[in-house]
């Protein structure tokens, strides 16, 4: 069986300016994929190109074994059988909820249309709202109507453009779980774009981190967090710091935190200069530890406090400490590194990173 979606070496630009370059990934039937990247990185353009609203510059798009786009060739959007959930929902204001959902079912017989719409409306939990108009619904309800409308014609693939960005945080988490559940129940393949990694983690089977016009890594959430392919992935996903170090042997590396021992994310020869990714949870706070670090900044996070610590030689790391350990800025506290899987990048790779993403409030320290 062919994969539902194959994107091969896709490039897309306006004029001479490329927005996305050489993107390749595959989605299997029933998988939920996610393109994760900062605002303006071209992920929405990629999604619209897959939907057929934009032409490709070079490369190919295949759906279920049929080519739908290549250079100079494009199947129009209405023939691609894709569903799309728009960022502003794009509900038709002049139609009722029922008519909105039934809009894509014009070729379906009337006798089959009604049960299908009713079924979908109850799936999204809006049985009672069939005769209402979009303006009578809340934002969350509008989004569910948009979801039901996109799913109604049983698309090959559902595309979601920043689906939760217009909702408040509490609703966002609940809906993202619900939407994932509904998509799986309908056995639909889906591809969403977002700049919010929590959303990506909650929804997706596969995540593609986009940065610098390219997909840097296409993997599961777990792998992306714990085994980032390069520094820019590490920088965008999760929090942490990069510490310079030197490889001692195949399992040991020396840095300001002393000698760390564990399995390497990628093999490095002895003596190689590397940057080691230290996540906040890798630093354990222990009062009796001999290794001390000075608190330069702290952020209260409810159950934890995120401390920014300066080590003796001047590098900084982040530490997540249970919030009943209260310390003042300027105080020195004892720490102990606990790193089992060591993520390291060769020096020159890591130095390419020149961004600190603060959209979601997470911090990343870079040392080049």
């Amino acid at each position, binding site marked *: 069986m062919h994969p539902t979606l194959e994107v091969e070496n896709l490039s897309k630009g306006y004029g001479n300016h490329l927005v996305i370059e050489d993107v390749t990934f595959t989605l299997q039937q029933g998988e939920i994929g996610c393109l994760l990247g900062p605002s303006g990185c071209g992920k929405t353009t990629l999604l619209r190109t897959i939907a057929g*609203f934009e032409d490709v510059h070079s490369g190919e798009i295949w759906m279920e074994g049929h080519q739908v786009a290549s250079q100079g060739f494009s199947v129009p959007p209405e023939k691609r059988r894709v569903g799309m959930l728009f960022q502003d929902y794009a509900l038709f204001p*002049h139609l009722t909820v029922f008519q909105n959902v039934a809009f894509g079912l014009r070729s379906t017989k009337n006798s089959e249309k009604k049960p299908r719409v009713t079924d979908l409306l109850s799936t999204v939990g809006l049985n009672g709202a069939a005769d209402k108009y979009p303006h009578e619904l809340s934002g969350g309800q509008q989004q569910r109507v948009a979801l039901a409308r996109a799913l109604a014609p049983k698309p090959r693939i559902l595309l979601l453009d920043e689906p939760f960005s217009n909702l408040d945080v509490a609703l966002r988490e609940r809906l993202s779980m619900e939407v994932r559940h509904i998509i799986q129940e309908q056995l639909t393949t889906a591809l969403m774009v977002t700049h919010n990694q929590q959303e990506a983690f909650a929804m997706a089977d596969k995540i593609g981190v986009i940065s610098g016009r390219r997909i840097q890594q296409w993997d599961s959430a777990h792998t992306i967090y714990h085994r980032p392919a390069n520094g820019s992935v590490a920088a965008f996903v999760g929090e942490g710091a990069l510490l310079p170090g030197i490889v001692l042997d195949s399992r040991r590396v020396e840095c300001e935190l002393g000698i760390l021992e564990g399995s390497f994310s990628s093999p490095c020869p002895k003596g190689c200069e590397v940057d080691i990714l230290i996540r906040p949870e890798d630093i354990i706070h222990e009062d009796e530890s001999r290794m001390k670090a000075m608190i330069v900044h702290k952020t209260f996070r409810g159950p934890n406090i995120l401390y920014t610590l300066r080590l003796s030689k001047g590098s900084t790391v982040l530490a997540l400490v249970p919030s009943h350990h209260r310390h003042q800025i300027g105080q020195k506290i004892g720490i102990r590194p606990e790193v089992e899987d060591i993520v390291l990048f060769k020096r020159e790779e890591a130095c390419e990173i020149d961004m600190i993403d603060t959209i979601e409030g997470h911090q990343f320290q870079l040392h080049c």
Partner: protein
Amino acid sequence: MPQTKALQRQRVRSLGGFSMRKLTQFLDGWRLGASGVAFLVAVPLLVIFSSFFRPTQGIWDHLIENVLPGLFANTAWLVLGVSLGTLFLGVALGWLTGSCDFPGRKMFSWAMLLPLAMPTYVLAFIYLGLFDFVGPVQTGFRALFPQSGFRFPDIRSTGGVILVMTLALYPYVYLLSRSAFMTQGKSSMEAARSLGLSPTGAFFKVCLPMARPWIAGGLMLVIMDTLADFGAVSIFNFDTFTTAIYKSWFGFFSLTAAAQLSSILVFIVLVVILLEQRLRTRMRYTDAGKSGLRIDRFQLSRGLGWAAFAFSLVVLLAGFIVPCTQLVLWTIEIFDLEFGSRYFSLVGRTFFLASTAALVTCFGAIILTYTKRRHPDPCTSGLTRLATLGYALPGPVLAVGIFIPVAKLDNLLIGLLQSAFGYEASSLLQGTIVIMFTAYLIRFMTTGFNPVDSAMQRITPSIDEASNLMGVKGFALLRSVHMPMLKNGLLTALTLVFVEVMKEMPITLMTRPFGWDTLAVKIFELSSEGEWERSALPAVALVLVGLVPVIFLTHHSEKQHRK
């Protein structure tokens, strides 16, 4: 909690207290002013309504038997014809300039508004002159084809009136439908396509239905203007309610019959207004313009593009360029004869009336908007709505509705004066310009109110609070914060009312004191006698002044779409 107790006591007192006191509490200075304006509007409305419910038997029978069937038929044909005509021109042009791209689109998108500058009665007499037996069209045709023997259909016909009114009024539908097409988010179109519709299908299934409330809103304005029109229909000798009201008053001297005809017309207009207000609420809900995406225009093919160009050009020629050219030619012909001190005094009087009316109306508008702002309760908003209802009264109806109560008041006052001071007077208010100004105030309050009100809404309560915190309050607040923020709105209101009063004809015609002719009345009198050339000179002034609001509109809609 002594405070809450005091509050409770106060509440109890106000509930059980003397009702007069509640009334004086309610009627502070602002509300008193607003009530005054509302009262002025309510009186003619009530007078007209009461004459519907108290029909005088003989007149009513005569009306039903001889007058009404013809009036209803004429009005129905006129409304139907003008509606279809304006719908076709307005939607087609709105879609072409709003969603497509063709040669000259940018120029046409504002130029198509130009016919708004022409009062319907001006366009009417120009068309009569153009298609007259001795007019340029027929003479030209005879010169070209001397043997053809072709007889032109009489322009003085139902079709002729419909043509003229359509050309004069289609810009309303055009303006609203174009703005609807332009603000429709791109994503609606894309959503429809992702659900399997072709671009053409998406247009008819999504874009057009989404624009429907706007199109219908424009159509309601057209219908209101058609029903209220007096000038064009009377120049064409086409009997409608407005001309019948005029004739029964000034021809048969039956004010009662005029009032009863007015009451029927008001009912029809009110139905249209109710429809329009319902559409307005739907328009608010179906606001699709929030997405800031630039619309992708349909690139018309070469042939279609030039066809669109030709179509727009023909409409523009027929609605503006040709009539204007004819107007200028006539003016040149008679300029030496007509232009003189008499013309200056005519213009001077018109300016005096228009500018005074504009000042009075804007003063009323300020009172209304401040009252609305100070008291955001349903009672006050009802008061403002009543006070701005005057636009619904067609000019002749308003003239009748004002004249009747003023005559009664006059008689009352004369009686009082006579018994108190032995002073003999034949009339006090009748035949003075006070009546005219009252009528203008009522009729154009909405025109003045809307710009002032939208400016006022920009002064949020927090602006007052911020100023108060910095120690600016009372008159200083008014002078240094409110006035600068209201200035543009007020200027717009003054200009619009000024122009409207200058173009106004039936009220002036029916309520003016002897000798108070305006440009509009002069045009009416001259064109009623078929003196097209002599009507041209005053008409040129009106068209020039009429261009001002068109420029406002163009500017405003451009600003809206640039956002």
